[in-house]
C-alpha cells in the first residue's frame, strides 16, 4: 500500500489530462447527482460521492455503438467497427468494480465480444473506497462494499492523503510519473484503511435479511408465486429504467441504419431492457413474456439466479441504482428479496 498527498494526486490527474493521450474520465456532479464524464480539470473530480446515475459500464459497452459498417456501391462490403478510446477512469466504487468483473466474464465467454473486450483492455480503472453511501444501496449485504481486486489502482481517502493499493502494472505505471512523491504506507495507515473498509460495510440503510448465496434457491422456490409477482408488478411502467441503470444488465438490441444515399450504413447495438414490453416479442405478435409480472419476475430471476447458474455470480451488486431511479418505487431488490424470504417461512 502506498500513500500520496491529495494535491499530488490532483497534480497527477491534471498532468494526465494535459499530456496523456488517453481520455481521462472522472466522477463529477450533475445537478444534485453524479455522473462519470470526461474531466476537464482535476478540480472537477468528486470522489466523495454516493452513486452515479449510470455505471461506468458505458465506457466498455456504450449506450449506442456501431458494430458493422456496410457499403453497396460495388457489391456488398461489410467492415467490423470498434471505436476504442483508451481511457483512464477515476473514482469507481467497489460494487461497480465487482460488476465490471462480472461483465468481463459475460463478454469473454465464447464467442468473445471483441467490441467490449478491446475497450475494456484499453482502460485503466482507478477505484475509490466509499466514504458515503447512497440511501438505496445495500452493497454491505452483497459483499461488494469493498473489493480485493478488479482495479488497477484503488484509493482510500485518509483526510489530506490517499492510501493507494496497486492492482496491476497498468496501475503502477501511472504512479511512475510521481514516484518521488509516493511513499509506502505505515502500519498505522494500513490499519486505518482496513478499518475504514470494515466500517463502511455497516453504513448501509438497506440490507438483505439473509446471505445472498441463498438467493438462487430462494428464487427457484418462489418462481411460481404468481400472485406475488403480479401484485408487485402492478405499478410497473415497463420503462426499463431498472435495466438501463444497472451495472450488470447487458442485453442489447441491434438495428440497421442506412445513410441517406441508401448505399451505405451501419448496424448498431443499443442497450435494451428485459422490462420493455417488446423484448421477447417475435414477428406475428407472439410475445413470450407478455405480462408485466412475467417481465418483472424475469428481472429478479436474472439478478439473483440465472447469471449465477451461468457464471457463478449473483448479478446484483447492491448499488441501489434501480431502486433509486424507479419512479413508482417498485424496483428495490432488498424489498422484493426480503419479502420472498419472509414469505418462505410462512
Amino acid at each position, binding site marked *: 500500500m502506498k500513500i500520496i498527498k491529495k494535491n499530488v494526486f490532483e497534480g497527477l490527474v491534471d498532468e494526465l489530462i494535459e499530456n496523456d493521450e488517453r481520455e481521462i474520465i472522472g466522477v463529477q456532479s*450533475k*445537478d*444534485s*447527482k453524479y*455522473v462519470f464524464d470526461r474531466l476537464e480539470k482535476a478540480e472537477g473530480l468528486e470522489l466523495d460521492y454516493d452513486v452515479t*446515475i*449510470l455505471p461506468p459500464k458505458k465506457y466498455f459497452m456504450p*449506450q*449506442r455503438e456501431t458494430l458493422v459498417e456496410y457499403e453497396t456501391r460495388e457489391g456488398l462490403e461489410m467492415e467490423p467497427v470498434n471505436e476504442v478510446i483508451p481511457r483512464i477512469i477515476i473514482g469507481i466504487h467497489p460494487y461497480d468494480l465487482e460488476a465490471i468483473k462480472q461483465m468481463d466474464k459475460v463478454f469473454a465467454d465464447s464467442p468473445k465480444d471483441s467490441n467490449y473486450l478491446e475497450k475494456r483492455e484499453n482502460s485503466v480503472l482507478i477505484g475509490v473506497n466509499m466514504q458515503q453511501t447512497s440511501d438505496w444501496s445495500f452493497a454491505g449485504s452483497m459483499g461488494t462494499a469493498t473489493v480485493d481486486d478488479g482495479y488497477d489502482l484503488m484509493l482510500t481517502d485518509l483526510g489530506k492523503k490517499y492510501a493507494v493499493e496497486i492492482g496491476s502494472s497498468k496501475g503502477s505505471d501511472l504512479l511512475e510519473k510521481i514516484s518521488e512523491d509516493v511513499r509506502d504506507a505505515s502500519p498505522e495507515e494500513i490499519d486505518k484503511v482496513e478499518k475504514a473498509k470494515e466500517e463502511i460495510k455497516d453504513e448501509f440503510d438497506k440490507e438483505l435479511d439473509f446471505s445472498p448465496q441463498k438467493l438462487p434457491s430462494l428464487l427457484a422456490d418462489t418462481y411460481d408465486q404468481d400472485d406475488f409477482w403480479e401484485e408487485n408488478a*402492478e*405499478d*410497473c*411502467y*415497463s*420503462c*426499463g*429504467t431498472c435495466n*438501463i*441503470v444497472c451495472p450488470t444488465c447487458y442485453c442489447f438490441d441491434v*438495428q440497421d*441504419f*442506412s445513410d*441517406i*444515399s*441508401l448505399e451505405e450504413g451501419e448496424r448498431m447495438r*443499443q*442497450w435494451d*431492457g428485459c422490462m*420493455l*414490453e*417488446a423484448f421477447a416479442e417475435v414477428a406475428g405478435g407472439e410475445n413470450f413474456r407478455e405480462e*408485466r409480472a412475467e417481465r418483472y419476475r424475469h428481472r429478479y430471476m436474472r439478478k439473483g439466479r440465472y447469471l449465477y447458474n451461468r457464471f457463478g455470480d449473483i448479478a446484483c451488486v447492491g448499488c441501489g441504482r434501480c431502486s433509486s*431511479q424507479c*419512479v*413508482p418505487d417498485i424496483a428495490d431488490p432488498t424489498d422484493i428479496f426480503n419479502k420472498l424470504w419472509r414469505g418462505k417461512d410462512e
Partner: protein
Amino acid sequence: MKPEERPKAAFFDFAGCEGDQLQVANLEEKILDLLNIVELVSFREVMTEHSDDYDVAFIEGSITNSHDAERLNGIRENADVLVAIGACATIGGINSIRNVQDFEKVQERVYGDEREHYEAWEKAKPAKAVVEVDYEVHGCPIDREEFLHVVQSVVMGREPNIPDHPVCVECKLNENVCAFERDEFCVGPVTRAGCDSCCVNEGAICWGCRGLIDNPNEEAHEEVLEEYGLTAEEVIKKFDLYFAWQQEAREDE
C-alpha cells in the same frame, strides 16, 4: 438512385403550425441528398409547382372540418403511401386540448359573436381518424433524423424503427437527472420514445408530444403523480396536453 426510380413525394398541410415542414427545410444541405432519393412534386410552402401524381404523401396538421377531411380523402386516393408527420397529424397535437373543453365556450372565447361563421369540428383529429395512415413521424416538432429515417425506409421498402417504449429509456441512456428527482412532473413514463429525450436533455421535462405508447400504464402513472403531490385534476391536465385524442380513442375501443 436513378432519377426515374425516385418515388414522387408531396407535402400537404392542415391545421398546424407548419413547424414540421420547417424541420424539413431545416435539413439544410441534406435536402439536396433527400432530392436524390425522392422527387418533390408538391410542397405548397416552398414551391408553386404542383402535381397530383405522387407516390408518397406527407401530411402535417390536424383535421378539423369536413372540407379538410375531404381534401385528405382525395390525397389518400392519390397516394400509395401516406405518412403523417408531427403531433397534430399523428395524435391531434396541441389542437386536441380543445377536445376536452366545452366547445361552445371554446368558440365563444375565440370568435365571440361570430362563431357561426366558420365550420369547425368539436374535436381536432389526427390523420388516422379520417383515413388509413401507413407511417407516422411523431413529435412536436418532428425530429429531422427520424424523418429522414422514415423516408429512407419508405424508399427501401422496409419498416422504420419507431420505438414503442417510454421516453424514460432514452432519458436514462442520456444520463439525465429524472424530473421526479428535481421536484418536477413528467409524462415520460407513458410517452413514446424516439426523440432521444430531447426536452429533458435541455433541462426541461417530457411534455408528451410523441403521444402515449401502445400499452401505457396510465393508472400507475396517475397514482404516482398524485403521490408526488399533484391533485387528480392536475394529473388529468398533464395528460390532456397531448393525449386527449388518444385517450378518448382508446376509451371508444
